[in-house]
């Protein structure tokens, strides 16, 4: 109701405003004043806040024009179901089941395991881990994938030869060979958005702040990233590989790989 009234009122504010708005938020080129050396972007994730709605995976596909098929994702959500141990085993926990139907894009169908058999269950959002020692950039034969000064790991689509070596080298399955460009593709932290002062699409639509995004060089007064690292004990994925991911996870279970 309020929205409708607001909408109509705003509509009466005539076209010039709309044009200005359109210019500001959708057709503007990247701000020429953007200086990559003055930022260090990072996204962190709180497993205990993710509700598995799948809006992020959906938004990512829309925002970045990721191929529709169910094996191309720049970000996705996994559901972990840890069953109760079988009665005779005297184990602390039972079998672990993981699934990610269509990357969690449409949300998750009811679990096939009866509720009574579930010991614990949770969702884990996944994306490029922004490794400090990224194996993907290490193995690229031509320097088509690189760590940017502002904290993203990008693929140069006009220089990538499409050998797939980086895809093999990523321990986290975060890359894919796009059938459209025939080059490697991956999460860019929505580089075209963050350089315009917008949030990455997944962070924008996340309803529970499970995804926390910020700039380590210019933290805002109420920067969620600062609060996140102060309040949580954090972990990374596959730390034994020495890739040293910058993406931190709060409340991560040992079963998550």
């Amino acid at each position: 109701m309020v929205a409708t009234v607001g909408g109509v009122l705003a509509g009466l504010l005539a076209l010039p405003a709309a044009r200005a708005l359109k210019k500001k938020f959708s057709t503007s080129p990247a701000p020429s004043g953007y200086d990559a050396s003055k930022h260090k972007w990072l996204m962190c994730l709180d497993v205990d806040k993710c509700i598995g709605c799948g809006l992020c995976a959906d938004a990512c596909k829309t925002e970045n024009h990721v191929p529709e098929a169910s094996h191309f994702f720049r970000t996705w959500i996994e559901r972990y179901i840890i069953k109760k141990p079988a009665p005779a085993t005297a184990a602390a926990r039972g079998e672990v089941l993981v699934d990610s139907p269509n990357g969690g894009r449409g949300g998750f169908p009811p679990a096939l395991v009866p509720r009574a058999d579930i010991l614990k269950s949770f969702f884990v959002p996944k994306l490029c881990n922004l490794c400090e020692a990224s194996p993907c950039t290490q193995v690229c034969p031509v320097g088509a994938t690189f760590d940017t000064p502002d904290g993203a790991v990008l693929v140069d689509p006009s220089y990538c030869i499409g050998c797939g070596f980086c895809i093999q080298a990523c321990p986290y399955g975060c890359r894919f060979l796009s059938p459209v460009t025939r080059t490697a593709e991956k999460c860019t932290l929505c580089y075209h958005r963050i350089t315009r002062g917008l949030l990455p699409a997944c962070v924008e639509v996340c309803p529970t702040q499970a995804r926390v995004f910020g700039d380590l060089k210019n933290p805002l007064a109420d920067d969620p990233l600062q609060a996140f690292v102060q309040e949580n004990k954090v972990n990374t994925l596959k730390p034994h590989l020495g890739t040293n991911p910058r993406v931190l996870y709060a409340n991560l279970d040992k079963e998550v790989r």
Partner: protein
Amino acid sequence: MSLQLTAILAEVAPHFDGYVYPNESGSHPLWGVLIVLYPYITGLVAGAFIMASLVRVFRVKALEPVYRLSLLTALAFLLCATLPLLLHLGHPERSYQIMITPHLTSPMAIFGFVYAWYLMAVLLLELWFDYRGDLVNWGRTEPGLRGFIYRLLTVGVSDVSPAAIALDHKLSWIISILGIPSAFLLHGYVGFIFGSIKANPWWGNAIMPIIFILSAMVSGIALCVFVYMVLSWRRRRALDMRCLDVMGMYLFYALVIDAAIEALDWIHRAYSAEEGFHVMEYMAQQRLFYTLSIGQLLMGTLIPLLTLGSLQVARKFVSDAIRTRLYFTCAIFVLLGVLAMRWNVVMGGQFFSKSLRGVMSYKLEFAGAEGWFLGLMLLSLPFIILTVLIKLFLSQSLLTSGHVPHRPDPT
């Protein structure tokens, strides 16, 4: 909504058991038959070259009849070695960038240089110095296109004085010595492309380059046995049994070392049983049973090992005809076994998810860029090139006496 989900589940579910990352759940492996052929062909090159080096560097006189043949075999396969790589690229037209801006931390980037070094500085030079005197002579006697090709290949150097020929052979010998580490480098390098991937427990392994070198030697010697026998049969010429026996002996030794190192690799994997070993165990027992247990282990290793081993002991008691057949069978088994080994490495590393929670079951089809047909075509291409090379450089009409022209001792 739920209907859509069911459809998606039905589409995705049959591809795998357990959980695989969504980006791994496509219907094809990222690297297919072409990438299986790439280390296979490169290995054959390195092996055939080492085989030739036995004559030059280690003075194994018995192998003289196959010296030039092995070098030409190595050349024919080397000319095709980059083709599968090139064809599998998303953008083959950008492949030159590997040479222009080689990323020094990438195990793949330097391959262009290693390849160029091996092709031009080692193989072509050794062949040229070895053939130069002959090329000049043939260029004078042969008419037409054939003579023109020989004259072209002399690059205008027509000095065939004994001193010049002696220098040729000395240089050829030096290049041959340089060539052995180069052959090791070439194929060890290919092994490192896989061995350096720490994300993949099937590949990430320090002895992967060594395993690749050893299996390359095995396959290269087997290829030389195969090519030599086929060529002799086609020319209806008697096989040199001494040469064949010595090749069989070297094949046996190479197999022993190769089998020992590969066994060591598996023992180490099984004993340390690091993260992900259960997946590899499952793969070895289920997904790769035919190519690993039957192809690589039984056919490619155990049968040739036992056959060649017994021939080492009881050579005198086996007639030439049976020995010939046994060598031929062993060579083919070894060639197929090493092909199975390359398959197991390349495909095995992609059949399980890097989440270590699931196994994919890709289908490899007949047609298409990564299909069987193209693979077979690529595999027959070096044989076609070899036929041309043999017609040009090992033609019977050119070689008046015996298998090789008189060669002065390089020292």
